[in-house]
């Protein structure tokens, strides 16, 4: 390649220039010298703050000193740069023309023609091949979706939210202690779990995920001895003990609040309220169904047990629930 052909311009380009006194270029600041000095000060201050934050890290001072100095330094550095841009750099207003993005009709037609006509030649003439390719790609897609559908997790079967409370399951509190007649005073409340979900790990009583998430049950003792929450549930509340599933029928939060005067269980998530005396029927809020009730009794040793499993799935509704 000859030198003349490929000679980058080595002289100054004659193009529009502007003088410093042009108001488009000129300072937006009334006192540019003063602004320059201030910005310089701001930059120096930011350096000092960065230094302090470095020292705070090194010496392991409180996080707020480290963060405060770092934030202050960042802010001043940014503020100085922005002020420099705003007051001491070409201000404009400058203008740039917009070029129409749309091309000429001829060019549009050329593209459309190429798309349509090539498609006709390639696809429409070989319709069978096109169909087979599409079928192949479709089958591939379905096959590739298998791992996603099958490997991620188990297919839900019929055991939705089935609890491990059986007839005769002993109620235990979070420390694994079984409950006797006088464990709770009238008006008292505690969370209980089925003893068959309890195990010891690291020397501590703990429960399976199933026991904690699904089987958690709230046990209350109401004053006034045995009562009936609903017709057909006679004898479920010995000595005023009554047990309901603690999983809210709305969205599954633990129904953890107890309004003692009104004898209401309250879900702290969306304020559904359940009337304890009347079978935990929702009295207020978005919950659609009562909390399922666990029938209670005593075993031979005088411990509280469930006399039968819950009569329905626990927690929020799902499509397969009948």
């Amino acid at each position, binding site marked *: 390649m000859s030198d003349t052909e490929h000679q*980058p311009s080595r*002289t100054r380009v004659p193009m*529009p*220039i*502007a*003088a*410093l006194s*042009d108001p*488009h270029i000129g300072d937006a600041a009334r006192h540019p010298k003063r602004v320059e000095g201030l910005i310089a000060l701001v930059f120096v201050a930011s350096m000092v703050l960065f230094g302090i934050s470095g020292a705070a890290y090194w010496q392991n001072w409180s*996080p707020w000193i480290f*963060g405060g100095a770092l934030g*202050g330094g*960042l*802010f001043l*550095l*940014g*503020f100085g*740069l*922005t002020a*420099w*841009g705003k007051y001491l*750099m*070409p*201000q*404009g*207003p*400058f*203008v*740039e*023309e*917009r070029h129409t993005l749309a091309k000429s009709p001829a060019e549009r037609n050329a593209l459309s023609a190429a798309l349509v006509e090539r498609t006709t030649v390639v696809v429409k003439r070989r319709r069978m091949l096109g169909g087979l390719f599409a079928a192949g790609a479709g089958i591939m897609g379905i096959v590739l979706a298998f791992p996603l559908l099958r490997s*991620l*997790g*188990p*297919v*839900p079967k019929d055991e*939705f*939210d089935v609890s491990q409370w059986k007839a005769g399951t002993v109620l235990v509190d*979070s420390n694994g202690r079984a409950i006797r007649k006088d464990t709770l005073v009238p008006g008292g409340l505690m*969370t209980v779990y089925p003893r068959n979900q309890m195990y010891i790990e*690291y020397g501590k009583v*703990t429960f399976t*995920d199933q026991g*904690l*998430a699904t089987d*958690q049950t709230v046990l209350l003792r109401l004053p006034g001895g045995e009562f009936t929450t609903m017709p057909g549930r006679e004898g479920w509340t010995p000595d005023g003990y009554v047990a309901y599933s603690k999983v809210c029928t*709305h969205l*599954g*939060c*633990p129904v953890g*609040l107890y309004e003692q005067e009104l004898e209401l269980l309250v879900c*702290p998530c969306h*304020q559904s309220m359940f009337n304890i005396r009347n079978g935990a029927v929702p009295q*207020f809020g*978005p919950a659609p*169904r009562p909390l399922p009730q666990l029938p209670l009794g005593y075993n031979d040793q005088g411990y509280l047990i469930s006399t039968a499993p819950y009569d329905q799935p626990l927690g*929020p*509704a*799902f499509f397969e*629930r009948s």
Partner: protein
Amino acid sequence: MSDTAIRTKRSTKRAMGPYGQVGKIVDELDDRYGIAKVGRVALDKIFPDHWSFMLGEIALYSFVVLIATGIFLALFFVPSAHEIIYHGPYAPLRGQRVSEAYQSTVNISFSVRGGLLIRQMHHWAADIFVGAIIVHMARIFFTGAFRKPRELNWIIGILMLVLAVLEGFIGYSLPDDLISGTGLRIGYSIAESQPFIGSYMTSFLWGGQFPGDGSIIPRFFIIHVLIIPLALLALVSIHLALLVHQKHTQFRGEGRTEHNVVGSPMFPTFMAKTTGFLFMVAAVTALLGAFAQINPIWQFGSYDSSKISYAVQPDWYMGMLDGALRIMPSWEFAGVGHTVPLEVFLPAVVFPTMLITFWLLYPTLERRITGDNELHNLLDRPRDRPKRTAAGVAMFSFMFTLFAASSTDVLANFFHVSLNATLWFFRIAIFVIPAIAAAVTYQLCKEMQGVHGIGKRKRAVIVHRSAQGEYSTVPSAPRPDDEHVELDPEPVPVRIDIEPLSNGADRQPETSPTGVRQVTR
């Protein structure tokens, strides 16, 4: 050649040409990539100077902060639901069963030097990110910047908002603390409420029934640190590329037309301002992280599905969804052997889907209604489009009412009214407040259109009292800053002349080439 024999500083400089090392680099790059023209255009790219254009920048820069702080956190976080006994420096937790995810988050806060600050910066930046996106979206909506040819960028923006909210929810679920665990439990039940697919979806995602087999934390982790950030990065790139390709919109003003852009050049003015702004956004997150505690998970404890705390509120951007769940009546469909919990499915699945679809389709809908198929590069003043402005205000007041409804319990406690009354107030307000807001906005816009000199500073009026006790008023003389003075826009100069050139031939007059005409609006 004889002068190559002796190389001095000066001779080397002369050989470089008038632009020195930079010129040399430009030559080399242009040989290979042909950057000369594109590069020049890029330097001169004009950015309109209006404060409202910074809102998108806040979102962009908080995303930068999120990536930077997120990389740091990912070095220490252990995405595992495996339960262990805590033996760390935080005494109240010692001996408690916690998940590894929870313990590592506590360790980031207390054992990793600088970790607490970075964690809090990350959380604050996430809240700012979503907030900035929404405010930016409001600017785009009320000024009509979404109109043809920018519908696609509006759609990308909405998708980014959805991803950002999802990313935020997944992110604050990762520490596996009591509050986020409760949120996750609610999320599980919402997903489960969908007819046909619900239980399959939750079983596949959680690896079984709640709380699953412990897969959810590592799965959420990879979604949070890779999949959604990658999608966001791709969408941000397309968003910005489209913005550069189609150029900015601008408000009406002196010298501004549909066919130009008026403002500051990319280099150096906008570069300096926007880089400074990046530092300032980072600074705000750092200062918030340093002085304003956020999400102190060590106080909540590790998640235990049978425990809960009072005043359970999600992060603010999930508030709307929570409010909708609270005020929904308890309608459950049960029959033909199936149950559809409409009290969950409608407000938490159908409603947000409809809302997002509506936002995505809005530009098309407006074009259908107005029949306006023109290209628009000039922005509307909100008052000049009273119907759109009223619709937007109605939407925002609707969302804000739902947000407020997510704290019915706290409001009821604070104002000592019954929860029942609070709930019914919101059930009615959700329809009434947007209607009133829309009507008031429409009327205000109409009024503002008719006001002479709107948007200009009011001039003081002087009241005179004559000797006879008679009063008269005269407007005061204009002060220097009373009126907005703007210069005529002109092309970006290539060179700024500091010292007058000896050769006067290519020299422009001392004043601007077009002559300085001051325009008063």
